[in-house]
């Protein structure tokens, strides 16, 4: 049954006569992934002392977004991912994939997963491995063969389809890992360090592939140590430290604050440069130009007035925003300070 929507109000047309607040309410679509106060505690097998790897993580992933899970080693990223995949159970809290417990195999039917530093059966070749993966998803033989061939071609592995996996380089293994994660045409991709082991061309190719998947409506949860790439790829990120979420938000939102202003100049007399440095600003010759870096907007106004008054031609004035890497380091630093 088709449901025409009243676009102006975002409600189905058959609800037009129903006043808002009436007992008939619209049902919100389920979030693709929901984590509520998830805690994971392991016990040291020798001393039996508990160790909390994930400490009250709450996150929600919406459909069609690329979400980055960032954090230093031991922050709890992989532990969180393993619980999402049903490889471990949360000690406390709740995880739901489209409303289902990850332990339920049906919750993983449209999920693709790339492990960190993937390792596959080395007695198989790439095609055989993808055939095995296709069988595990219950995909028909003809379809899985066609998909496997297309994916190997897309990832530049067609020529190596019959080569044993044990002879694959790290980058090639990573690409097989991506192929197997996409074989079931997932609507949810979990990628643990997807750029690991790839050369610059491979990374660019995978980034393009992930953007195409997002266009197709796939939700992607990824971890990465390459923050510059995460910044350009992710819609939202969460920063994890010591098992806790320090920050979560859109990349734009997190990086909105201006850290300094850059004034581009054609020339700058030496005495003026010295004076600016004495005031605590940076003035550097960059090729034939000069760049003055100013920390605050109020100081910027004063310097601009001075420079114009001195007859110095101003080329450009640009805000420099924090990179994700800067933000990440600052957030972790603040967290560590707070814990002392």
């Amino acid at each position, binding site marked *: 049954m088709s449901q025409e929507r009243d676009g102006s109000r975002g409600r189905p047309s058959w609800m037009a006569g129903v006043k808002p607040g009436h007992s008939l309410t619209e049902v919100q679509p389920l979030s693709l992934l929901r984590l509520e106060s998830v805690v994971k505690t*392991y016990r040291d097998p020798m001393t039996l002392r508990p160790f909390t790897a994930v400490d009250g993580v709450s996150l929600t992933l919406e459909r069609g977004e690329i979400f980055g899970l960032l954090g230093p080693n031991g922050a709890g990223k992989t*532990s969180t991912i*393993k619980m999402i*995949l*049903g*490889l*471990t*159970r949360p000690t406390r809290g709740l995880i739901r994939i489209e409303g289902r417990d990850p332990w339920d*195999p*049906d919750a*993983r*039917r449209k*999920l693709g*997963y790339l*492990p960190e*530093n*993937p*390792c*596959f*059966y080395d*007695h*198989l070749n790439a095609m055989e491995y993808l055939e*095995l*993966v296709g*069988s*595990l*998803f*219950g995909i028909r033989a003809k379809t899985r063969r066609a998909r496997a061939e297309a994916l190997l071609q897309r990832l530049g592995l067609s020529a190596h389809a019959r080569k044993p996996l044990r002879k694959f380089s790290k980058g090639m293994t990573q690409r097989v*890992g991506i192929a*197997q994660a996409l074989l079931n045409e997932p609507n949810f991709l*979990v990628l643990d360090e997807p750029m690991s082991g790839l050369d610059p061309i491979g990374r660019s190719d995978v980034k393009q592939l992930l953007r195409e998947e997002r266009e197709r409506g796939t939700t992607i949860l990824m971890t990465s140590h390459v923050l510059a790439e995460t910044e350009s790829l992710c819609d939202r990120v969460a920063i994890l430290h010591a098992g806790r979420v320090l920050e979560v938000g859109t990349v734009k939102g997190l990086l909105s604050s201006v850290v300094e202003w850059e004034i581009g100049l054609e020339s700058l007399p030496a005495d003026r440069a010295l004076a600016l440095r004495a005031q605590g600003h940076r003035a550097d010759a960059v090729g034939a130009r000069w760049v003055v870096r100013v920390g605050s907007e109020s100081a910027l106004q004063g310097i601009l007035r001075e420079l114009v008054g001195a007859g110095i031609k101003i080329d450009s004035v640009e805000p420099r925003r924090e990179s994700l890497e800067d933000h990440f380091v600052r957030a972790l630093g603040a967290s560590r300070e707070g814990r002392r």
Partner: protein
Amino acid sequence: MTRTLAIAHNTLREVARERVVLVLALFGLMLLIGSQVLSPLALGEGRKVVIDFGLAGSSLLATLLCVFLGSSLLHQELERRTVYAVLAKPIRREEFLVGKFLGLWVTAAMLLAGMAVILLAVVTVAYHDTPWQVLGAVGLNLIELGIVTAVVVLFSSFTTPALTAFFAVAATVAGHFAEDLRYFASQGAPALRAMAEGAYWVLPHLDLFNARGLVVHGASVGMERILYAFSYGLLYVIGMLILAGAIFRRREFR
């Protein structure tokens, strides 16, 4: 079922590509042909010696394959972390375990069946008579292999390869003497008797699957015995796999 069969097929390919399988097969072949050397010493009983030697040898080699390759099969999956990518697919852990069991059992069964064919060929060529009754003994042996494989899968679901191999060998040896164990213990103190009674019911009654004595003397294995052994074997395997599944299901893959 498709998923279980996919894991079984993969396990079969994994095990079959191990060099040790080829070594065992060659060793079995040499054993069967070598038994011909001993037959003149048997004073006209050469045919019996070849059949007895052949059946015992093939059973031993197939059991060794099950125990020593099977004990490291799950451990390797965890160590190489191949299991993470597989269990993140829509497969139940029990299906994975049953697939591993089937793959290992079929590989061992293929080794046993291959050696049985060679044994039949050797006896036919040497004595111009095909001992078809050997097939009954091999059939029982296949069921026994299923039990040994299930025991291996059970122990490998929670312990190390070395301990798995140790427990599986211990269970196999003790299983062949389950009746004797019960008899000797019945002569002892009440506490010992109760323990032995418990062990008797837990251990697989592997003697049930040994029909070599019968076959060597030209008798066939009755259908009633085969059906009884099959039912017992099936129940035992199911019990072992349910237990292994319950343990493996609780396992955390850190």
